[in-house]
C-alpha cells in the first residue's frame, strides 16, 4: 500500500508494491487531474540511460514508471548514486524528491465531513473513508532518515524521522523537536505530537492552503527540514567546542 522511494548510496533499493485497493484512486471528481492520478513524479533531472559509466560524478537516475490501465498507478524511483558522491549530494536529492512529491500531493480542497453534519475535519487524521485517502509515500534517504507523506482530500500529513547518529545527537534532536512541538500553536502547520515511529509531523489543511501560497508553504517545509539538520549539527559542534575550551582552561591551571 505504500509507494516506496529509497535513495541509497551504492545500492539501488526500491520495491514495487501492489495496491490491493485499486479503487482508492478513483475519486468523486475525475475532472481534477490531481485527484485521479495521485502522483506524477516529474524528476528535475532528465532521464538518463543506465549505461552511464560508474566513475561519473553525477547521480544516475533510473526511472521506471508502470501504468496499470484502468486502476492505479504505482511508481518507484531508484536512485543509485555513484560511489564517489558525497553526503551533500544525497541531501539535495532527498529534499528535491520531497519537494516534488509535496507539489504533486498538495492539492487540497474544502470537504465537509460526510458522517457528521456541519463538521469539517482533516480526513487524513480520521482515516475512515478509503475514497478520501490517497496512497501514502515513504521517501527514505537511508535506514535512519525518512519522510512519510500521507494525503487526503482536504489535508496532508508529513512525518519526518531525523538522523541521530550517537547518544549526544539523540538527546539534542529530542530536546529540539520537543521544543518545536510545544510551540506548535505559533507554527500553525505543526502537529503537537509526532506520528508513531517518527520525530516530527506537520498537518496542512485546505484552510492553510487558502491563507498561504502553496509554493511558499512547500518552501517552508523544506527549509524547516534543512534547518533542523543544520541546527542539530551546530548544537553538537557547540557542545564539543565548549567541552574543549572548558577542558583546556581547567588543565592550564596546573601548568
Amino acid at each position, binding site marked *: 500500500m505504500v509507494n516506496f522511494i529509497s535513495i541509497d548510496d551504492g545500492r539501488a533499493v526500491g520495491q514495487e508494491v501492489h495496491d490491493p485497493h485499486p479503487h482508492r484512486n478513483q475519486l468523486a471528481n475525475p475532472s481534477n487531474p490531481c485527484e485521479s492520478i495521485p502522483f506524477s513524479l516529474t524528476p528535475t533531472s532528465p532521464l538518463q540511460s543506465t549505461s552511464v559509466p560508474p566513475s561519473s560524478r553525477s547521480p544516475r537516475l533510473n526511472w521506471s514508471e508502470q501504468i496499470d490501465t484502468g486502476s492505479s498507478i504505482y511508481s518507484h524511483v531508484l536512485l543509485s548514486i555513484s560511489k564517489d558522491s558525497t553526503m551533500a549530494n544525497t541531501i539535495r536529492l532527498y529534499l528535491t524528491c520531497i519537494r516534488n512529491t509535496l507539489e504533486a500531493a498538495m492539492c487540497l480542497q474544502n470537504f465537509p465531513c460526510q458522517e457528521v453534519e456541519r463538521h469539517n475535519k482533516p480526513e487524513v487524521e480520521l482515516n475512515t473513508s478509503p475514497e478520501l485517502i490517497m496512497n501514502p509515500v515513504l521517501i527514505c534517504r537511508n535506514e535512519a532518515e525518512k519522510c512519510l507523506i500521507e494525503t487526503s482530500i482536504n489535508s496532508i500529513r508529513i512525518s519526518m524521522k531525523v538522523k541521530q547518529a550517537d*547518544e*549526544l545527537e*539523540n*538527546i*539534542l534532536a529530542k*530536546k*529540539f523537536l520537543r*521544543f*518545536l512541538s510545544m*510551540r506548535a500553536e*505559533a*507554527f*500553525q*502547520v505543526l502537529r503537537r505530537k509526532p506520528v508513531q515511529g517518527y520525530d516530527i509531523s506537520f498537518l496542512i489543511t485546505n484552510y492553510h492552503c487558502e*491563507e*498561504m*501560497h502553496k509554493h*511558499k*508553504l512547500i*518552501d*517552508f517545509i523544506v*527549509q*524547516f527540514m534543512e*534547518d533542523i539538520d543544520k*541546527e542539530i549539527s*551546530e*548544537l553538537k559542534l*557547540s*557542545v*564539543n567546542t*565548549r*567541552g*574543549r*575550551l*572548558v*577542558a*583546556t*582552561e*581547567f*588543565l*592550564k*591551571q*596546573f*601548568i
Partner: protein
Amino acid sequence: MILLQSPSRFLLQILHDRLLSQDKGVDIDCQTVEFDDVRYHIQVSMRNPKVLVLSVALPLPPEEAASFDGLPFGAIEAIKAAYGPVVQILDPPKDGFDLTLKINLAKLPSDEEQKNAILLQIASIREVVLGAPLKILLKNLSMKTVGPEAGQPVALVHRPNESFFVVPQADKATVVYPMRFLDSIDIVLATSFLQEFVEARRTAALNNAPACMWSQSPPPELKGAPESALTANAGFVTFVVNPRHVEGKKLDRTVWNLLTFHAYVSYHVKCSEGFMHTRMRRRVDTLIQALDRAKSDAEKLKKMVTGPSFKKWFVI
C-alpha cells in the same frame, strides 16, 4: 567567567563594606547558600562594629569520609595557620552550622596589600576548611613523603553525600572522581565534556598538566573503596598529580581546582544547556518569520486592518 573563583564574592563584598564604613553603618545579619550545599551566615552588631561573626555549614559527608567533630581532618590547624590572630574559632558552632568564627577587624595588618590579602583569604574560607585534608595529602606529595595511608584510597567530601578519592603515593597522587548527575541530559552532555578532557590533555601544549583518563567502570585504583561509592552514571575521571603541580604557590590553586572539579563540570553543563535554549528560541523565531512570508498579502492586510476587537464582535 570560565573558572570557579576561590574567594566568595558575597563574603568579600561584606568585608570590604564593613571596612569602608568603619564606625557608621547598620547591623548586618545575612545568610547565603553557595553551590554544593555550603551555607554562610554573617553577623555584625553595632555594639561591636569591629567584630564579625561568620558561621559556615559544610556539605553532609557520606559514611566513608568520616569527619572529626563535624569538620574535615586538619581544618582547625589550617584555619589557625591561614589567619593567625585575626580569626578566632568559637566552640560550639552556632545551631545548624558546622563552624563559627569571630573575625576581629581591628587586628588586621595596617599595610593595605596585606589587609586585602587577609580579607581575600577569609572569603576563601571554603577552600581552607574543605580543602584541608586534600592540602595535607598534596603537601606530603610535594615533600615526597607518605603518610600512613599510602596506596589506599582516601575518601574526601566535595558534594553532599558524595566523595572523591585520593590515592597518595611517594611520587604521585591519583585523584579519582565518580561523576554522578541527576538529569539524563546532564549525563550525556557531561560524558562528552569529560571525554574532551582526555582529548585536550593529548594536545602538545598541555603536556605538563596532570594525566587525565576517563572510564565507564571503576578504575583499578579504587579497589579498596566501599561498594556504594562505585556507582557513577557519567563514568570515572582520574587525574595523576605530580609533585611539580603542587610545589610552592601552586598548591593552593591545585587544591581549589581539584576540590571543585565536579562543580566546575556541572556548571558548564548547565551553561551549555542554557546556551542551547537561547539558540533554539532564535531558530524558532527564524522559522516563524519564514512561515509569515508564506502568508498571502491579502491575509496580512486583513490582519492589519481588523484588530482583535473586530473579530470578537463577529463571533457574537
